[in-house]
């Protein structure tokens, strides 16, 4: 990548952000787009139990629509656990929230049932629902379980309602072909992003080596997360993915480099350093790569993550220490440190504790 990336936010609203990303690869910009759409955890209603439903809408219909309701999901990835990772048999406060919808229409009219009618039911967690007011003519009620998830499982977990992505508004790179009847210019009017770039001259030859360099993106969320959170979490998620890939390659090197006892010792002592380096964003990684350049031996590059393992109390040396730290925890937790500032103050402690 030539030069450092440039970001310019053109518009920031409560639920959307419009920005221009420059000096990055097309592949990278596309990964950012993909990651904000599909890899950010949010909370959505996933399990519905219907006690009584005398509305005109069938149960399935209501269950589906409830699933689409965006629930505020700030910090859900730190504070909650995926149901599949949770130790509880079927829903507990750590992996689910409990909502109740109890609406009755007694008048001779239709009423609107919105997400305002959803009530969060605090613990104790269980099925002890009181049935004090008997259902009237139109009643829906029942507990709904909101669970964290990501959009790869179901699109309802996507925090984004729309992500727009454009580059090369003048089609200088000819990545697309404009079909036209008579006049290409007239039939393909330029979008607003075209003002950002110089129009090609009439006689300009086609530069087949040119690469897209400027990307116009707009991320609009459904309200479950703020636009800023979506972007920052998307970037963090990218880092986690990359870190996990590095972790995946490295255990083999670790086996070759051997020195279990030595490695464990080094990790133990360096665990303390992690705290100091996490204040500087990306500092730990800078250090790690600097060492990479001089000596590719794994033991030297271990400390940034080793801190995580030893803090966790996993004193087992060598590979065991690595496998004891779950991929998300090892990579994500470590990186959580580099992002202090925008997340919650508890983020780090959560990262380490889980």
């Amino acid at each position, binding site marked *: 990548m030539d030069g450092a*990336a440039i970001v310019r936010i053109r518009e*920031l609203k409560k639920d959307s952000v419009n920005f221009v990303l420059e000096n990055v690869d097309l592949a990278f910009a596309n990964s950012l787009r993909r*990651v904000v759409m599909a890899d950010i955890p949010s909370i959505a209603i996933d399990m519905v139990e219907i006690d009584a439903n005398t509305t005109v809408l069938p149960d399935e219909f209501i269950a589906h629509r409830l699933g689409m309701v965006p629930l505020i999901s700030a910090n859900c990835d730190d504070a909650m656990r995926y149901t599949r990772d949770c130790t509880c048999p079927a829903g507990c406060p750590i992996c689910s929230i409990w909502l109740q919808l109890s609406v009755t229409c007694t008048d001779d009219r239709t009423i609107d049932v919105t997400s305002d009618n959803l009530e969060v039911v605090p613990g104790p967690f269980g099925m002890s629902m009181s049935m004090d007011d008997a259902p009237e003519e139109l009643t829906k009620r029942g507990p709904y379980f909101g669970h964290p998830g990501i959009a790869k499982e179901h699109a309802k977990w996507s925090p984004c309602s729309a992500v727009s992505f454009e580059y090369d508004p003048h089609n200088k790179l000819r990545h697309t072909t404009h079909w036209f009847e008579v006049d290409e210019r007239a039939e393909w009017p330029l979008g607003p992003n075209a003002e950002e770039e110089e129009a090609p001259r009439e006689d300009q030859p086609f530069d087949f080596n040119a690469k897209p360099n400027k990307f116009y993106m707009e991320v609009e969320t459904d309200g479950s997360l703020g636009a800023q959170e979506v972007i920052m979490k998307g970037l963090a998620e990218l880092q986690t993915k990359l870190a996990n890939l590095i972790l995946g390659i490295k255990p083999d090197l670790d086996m070759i480099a051997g020195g279990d006892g030595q490695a464990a010792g080094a990790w133990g002592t360096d665990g303390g350093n992690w705290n100091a380096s996490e204040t500087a964003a990306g500092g730990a990684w800078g250090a790690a790569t600097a060492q990479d350049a001089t000596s590719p031996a794994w033991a030297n590059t271990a400390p940034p993550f080793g801190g995580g393992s030893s803090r966790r109390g996993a004193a087992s040396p060598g590979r065991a220490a690595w496998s004891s730290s779950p991929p998300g925890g090892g990579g994500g937790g470590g990186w959580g440190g580099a992002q202090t500032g925008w997340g919650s103050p508890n983020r780090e402690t959560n990262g380490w504790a889980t």
Partner: protein
Amino acid sequence: MNAINRHELFVLDEGENPVEVTEDTKIPNAATIRIAKQDHTLGNMVRAQLLSMPSVLFAGYKVPHPLQPYFIIKVQTDGTITPQFALETACNDLIKMVGDLEGKFKREFAFKDADGATGSNAAGGPTAGGDDPYGGGGGWSEGKDYLDF
């Protein structure tokens, strides 16, 4: 009908290796790396980064089947570094770049926040409870609840 369970797209199976390296027997300094439970998001990004490295002769990735949640990436280097090391370096570079971008986004957001906080709040719906609708915990009353658990 043939599709796997959706969560298997991104959750590693029991005992599944996230990364498997197979060195090429016929091409020198080449390896095929199979990365489980990842898709084009990671594959394309890493491939592009590898290609930008001068010591990498070839890098390509593919998702062999859309219903199988893994991709393979083939790397050939000029011999100065191993393919694994090239991949590792590419990832490190990308992480640094993302970290850099994160800082830039943070600064831009902070700038915009100070700039047009009132305007953006005015657009807020009924859920805009607090002063800072973008903050992690702060304004989102629910956010606090999750952390309280």
